[in-house]
């Protein structure tokens, strides 16, 4: 299938490049279709290509030795992944899984490096993409290392529990993230942690507090 120029022009990597430039570049781009649930990249493998999402969603994540998953970010159409290790010549830093049927455009490391020499605008675009990635990562590092997100999530749950009058408080994970001053990805992780510790139980549209005292302790709220 032919690589679509219009899509390339709308992507962060190739925006601002002229049609002639894109024409000369697109023959180095390959298309890859990935089924939902399929792993596109495994963490630790040699990074051979950069991928841009044409359609669908790709989850970029790391897994700990005991199987815990941390989503680093979601790559939606126009977004890219595996760029950092491709440029530093290393191994893939994270795994990537197709959350839907996905179409990707890929460019091999060597091809990309050669194209960079002749297309300064491509280099500038990639610097911008990588800068945004650094900002994302710093924000995630801040969340993971300095903020006691789980404690704040516990506090939010306690403060928003349905009251004795049956007044229902309903919160989305996005709202909890905004309240805790953290990324939505951190809320899912915190809720899962609280569930593993037996403090809450997650149901379809309910969060059931199963051990209120223990949750108060995590929240740092007086007994």
């Amino acid at each position, binding site marked *: 299938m032919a690589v679509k120029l219009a899509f390339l022009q709308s992507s962060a990597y190739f925006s601002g490049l002229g049609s002639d430039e894109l024409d000369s570049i697109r023959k180095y781009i390959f298309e890859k279709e990935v089924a*939902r649930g399929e792993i596109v990249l495994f963490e630790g493998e040699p990074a051979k290509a950069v991928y841009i999402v044409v359609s*669908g*969603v790709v989850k970029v994540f790391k897994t700990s030795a005991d199987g815990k998953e941390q989503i680093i970010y*979601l790559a*939606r*159409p126009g977004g890219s992944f595996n760029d950092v290790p491709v440029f530093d010549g290393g191994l893939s830093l994270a795994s990537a899984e197709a*959350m*839907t*049927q996905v179409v990707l455009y890929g460019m091999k490391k060597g091809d990309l490096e050669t194209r960079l020499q002749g297309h300064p605008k491509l280099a500038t675009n990639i610097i911008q993409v990588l800068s945004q990635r650094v900002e994302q990562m710093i924000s995630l590092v801040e969340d993971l290392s300095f903020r006691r997100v789980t404690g704040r999530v516990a506090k939010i*749950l306690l403060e*928003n*529990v*349905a009251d004795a009058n049956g007044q*229902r*408080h*309903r*919160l*989305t*994970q*996005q*709202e909890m993230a905004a309240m805790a001053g953290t990324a*939505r990805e951190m809320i*899912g992780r915190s809720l899962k942690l609280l569930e593993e510790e037996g403090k809450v*139980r*997650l*149901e*379809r*549209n*309910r*969060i*059931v*507090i*199963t051990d*209120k005292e223990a949750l108060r302790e995590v929240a740092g709220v007086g007994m």
Partner: protein
Amino acid sequence: MPEIDRSKCDGCGLCVEVCSCKVLVLVDNKVEVNEKVECRLCTRWCTMCEMVCPAGAIQCPFEIVTEE
């Protein structure tokens, strides 16, 4: 069921693709909940549709309760 704000939906369809229960459908380029299908394949809300929506058009609110 997920709650949809049709005014925010841009019809990208990512939520439809990600939904393993097939609860979401695109009608006239806007996402809708198919009431005939139950969000039951997951034992609890996966909230993937809310997570992938770039327009913030889908909400999966949780009620917070204390166990009796």
